[in-house]
């Protein structure tokens, strides 16, 4: 025992108080009442924080109790019908299934041609033009209003140079330009910070796609070389599409889900 541990030294030499354990037990028993008093009396932000913490504790307690209560019983198991299992009287008929498979491939090919993909966010809220652009007044008397500043997150690419200020109509402020996105792999459930290669499609219109505006639902192409994905042929995959799942201008970052 180090020299400074006075409490332990005293306990070693003189033992505990004669009523120490009883007092301790009683104090702990009183904690329950104290806590309930605090829960009832705490007001304002403190009350809210306490309530939240307490709720989480109670939920956990309930779960553990339920876990302890569940007993191992034996239940009758219904054997699920195996996928594709045929009853005996249909055993030699299997043309129909093949036909189904075929039509699926045809459907997929058609979809590819049409350019419609299955994406995590099929529908997004349309963004109005006045929400997207802010009017900038220019000219000597500030009466000309043909310039627009984009208020959403944008991606411009490494070789971007502005048009001469006299001619540029759409201004993409450098504070709102992003180069990286937090991309989540849907199966691995982990998130990587990947570079954006480009904006593939913005659901609000082709104009926004060409401007490079990133809003919720936009399909972007990201550099996945650090994931180390390989095609069946053996080639290294370095670019994949991802769909943006948040509003980047409100959160200050781009969160996306990889489209596998």
């Amino acid at each position, binding site marked *: *025992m*180090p*020299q*400074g*541990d006075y409490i332990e*030294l005293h306990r*070693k030499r003189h033992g505990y108080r004669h009523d120490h354990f009883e007092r301790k037990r009683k104090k702990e028993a009183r904690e329950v009442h104290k806590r309930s008093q605090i829960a009832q009396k705490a007001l304002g*932000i403190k009350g809210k*924080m306490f309530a939240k913490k307490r709720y989480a504790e109670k939920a956990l307690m309930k779960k553990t109790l339920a876990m302890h209560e569940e007993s191992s019983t034996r239940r009758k198991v219904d054997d699920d019908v195996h996928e594709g299992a045929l009853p005996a009287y249909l055993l030699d008929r299997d043309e129909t299934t093949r036909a189904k498979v075929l039509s699926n491939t045809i459907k997929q090919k058609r979809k590819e041609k049409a350019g419609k993909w299955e994406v995590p966010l099929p529908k997004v809220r349309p963004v109005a033009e006045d929400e997207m652009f*802010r009017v900038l007044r220019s000219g000597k008397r500030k009466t000309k209003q043909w310039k627009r500043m984009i*208020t959403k997150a944008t991606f411009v690419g490494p070789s971007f140079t502005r048009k001469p200020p006299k001619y540029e109509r759409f201004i993409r*402020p450098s*504070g*709102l330009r992003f180069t990286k996105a937090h991309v989540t792999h849907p199966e691995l459930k982990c998130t990587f910070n990947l570079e954006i290669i480009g904006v593939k499609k913005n659901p609000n219109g082709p104009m926004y796609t060409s401007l490079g505006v990133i809003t919720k639902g936009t399909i972007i192409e990201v550099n996945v070389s650090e994931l180390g994905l390989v095609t069946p042929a053996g080639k290294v995959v370095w670019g994949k599409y991802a769909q943006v799942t948040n*509003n980047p*201008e*409100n*959160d*200050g*970052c781009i969160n996306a889900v990889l489209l596998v």
Partner: protein
Amino acid sequence: MVQYNFKKITVVPTGKDFIDIILSRTQRRTPTQVHKGYAISRLRQFYMRKVKFTQQNFHDKLSTIIEEFPRLDDIHPFYGDLLHVLYNKDHYKLALGQINTARNLIGKIAKDYVKLLKYGDSLYRCKSLKVAALGRMCTVIKRVSPSLAYLEQIRQHMARLPSIDPNTRTILICGYPNVGKSSFINKITRADVDVQPYAFTTKSLFVGHTDYKYLRYQVIDTPGILDRPFEDRNIIEMCSITALAHLRAAVLFFLDISGSCGYSIAQQAALFHSIKSLFMNKPLIIVCNKTDLQPLEGISEDDKKLVMEMKAEAMKTVIGQGGEATDDDSVLLTMSTLTEDGVIAVKNAACERLLNQRVELKMKSKKLNDCLNRFHVAMPKPRDQKDRPPCIPQAVLEAKAKKAEETAEKEKRKLERDLENENGGAGVYSASLKKHYILADDEWKEDVMPEILDGHNVYDFIDPDILMRLEELEREEGALQGLEADDDFEMDGAELTPEEQAALAEIRKKKSLLIQQHRIKKSTAESRPTVPRKFDKDKQFTAERMGRQLSSLGLDPSMAIDRARSRSRGRKRERSPDRGGNDGLDSMEVDGDQQNKKLRVRSRSASRSRSKSRPPGEVVPGEGLKDTAQKKKAIKMAKRSSKKRNKDARRGEADRVIPTLKPKHLFSGKRSTGKTDRQKFPLLWIHIQQPVASHVWGSCIRYAVQLQQPAIVENLFVC
């Protein structure tokens, strides 16, 4: 000089607590209210302030943590090594590095989000950006929370380290476990180190302080070291090795020559030789402990040889330090901590050696030359060869000699306690209390004393004068009882003399009279109207009566009566001149008469059949008011002063009242030209080209009033 006080480090909160503290601080210290309708720059500023404030707080708190924890490279190598041994330098540095990284990350986050906030164009957007910023900062802290927990544990342990000053005079005690190091330090200092029979009782360094030649010495007790290769040593042993390596101290190597610690002298000697490199440049003393179990002379030859070898090594260090030819005693000492035999000698030897070494070093150093020329020890020059010893008078010498004799005798005298110890200890031996009885014949000491002899109680006859004494005692008691009886003796009539009886009767009569009177008079205010003394019809309490009473007592009443008269002078002088010339008594009568007169006047008015009421303004003579007008004014003022103030600011009669908000005559009827809504707010616009005199205004307003359109007047805008 850095104070090695690690107790001053602030508490490191856990990750969760840290976040709670900072966020609630932000919530308290920044403005909390903001509305959608504010100007956008104000909204932006509001949220930017919150982000920056949070970042600043995180920065401050993390900086204090980083700065307060000692840097292992900047402190004394002893502490650096000790902390490395205890906490692992790399782990420690990593934890602090992570905190530093967290601080930078938070700074970057704040910078980015403040930049983004500049483009926020709605309350919702600014608010979400602020929430995102704070959330990210808190995530950084959450990731770093294991480091925070680790640092908190280190801090708690560091605060309990003994405060060892690495630069002052130190004595270090080392040796195998269980050789008696902790007992030694308990003996010479006030440190209360645990002493137990098992090995490794002491698990860390202990510090005690002791004095020698008016200087304070630190004594450091180390955990026992086992003879192992260096790499295999555990943390506890490494503490002692660190202390040995870095502290410039006198080393006491303890040797248990009795072997009761469980290790033979050979093993201990082997340990000595393995760590002797650490004893370089340090005054070394080999201490043989537990000599009460085994004296140094009684050990075997081989062991003696080993011991001599060790001594030789120790001598080498002495010679290395300046070649003083010290005697054996200064290098190899024996002692026993149980019997306290030789403990002080060891301490003195160690302190002496250390002091000499330090003084020598200081003399050799260059710093001393600066001070040396400032010292000068003055010795008085002897003026002749005569020897002048100190002069002690003969009486003092004799007294001293006698005292010495007495103390010697006292020491030689056998105490009862020694007797007890010899005969078996406290429970076994019972002292015979009759040993010191003073009796006529010494043979009677052990005799058993009877209690009853010949039918009498022996104790009744111990004193020859006992009967006499008993009689005296009884007499005293009787006297005392008589005194007490006197105190609560009741007064009987028969005991009094006739004059006293008469006086007693008088007193009783008077007392009963007074009580009766009081009972008559005693009525509460509700039951009877109190008549003030002025209207005291009985005229009991006159000055004459007072004079009579005073003279009956035998005092001269004239002075008192004069005083009383002067007090009661409230009457107008003109009333008394026709009665003037009487002596004091009569004039009091006059006063009484006056009073009576007033009463009579009153009763006359009260005896009328019908009461006469006065008009409000009529002046009653005697009130002090001049005329009706003044009285009326006085009444008015009285009423106004008692009026209650309108502290509730309720509507009063002075506040404007619009009896009808929409008078029909203004809101009805057709108009030939103009819109009908103009009727609702009839406005009168008066365009003036030149300034207009006030009387013109007045006429305007009067004209409007005549039109009976007060609404116009009210809505008169002047522009």
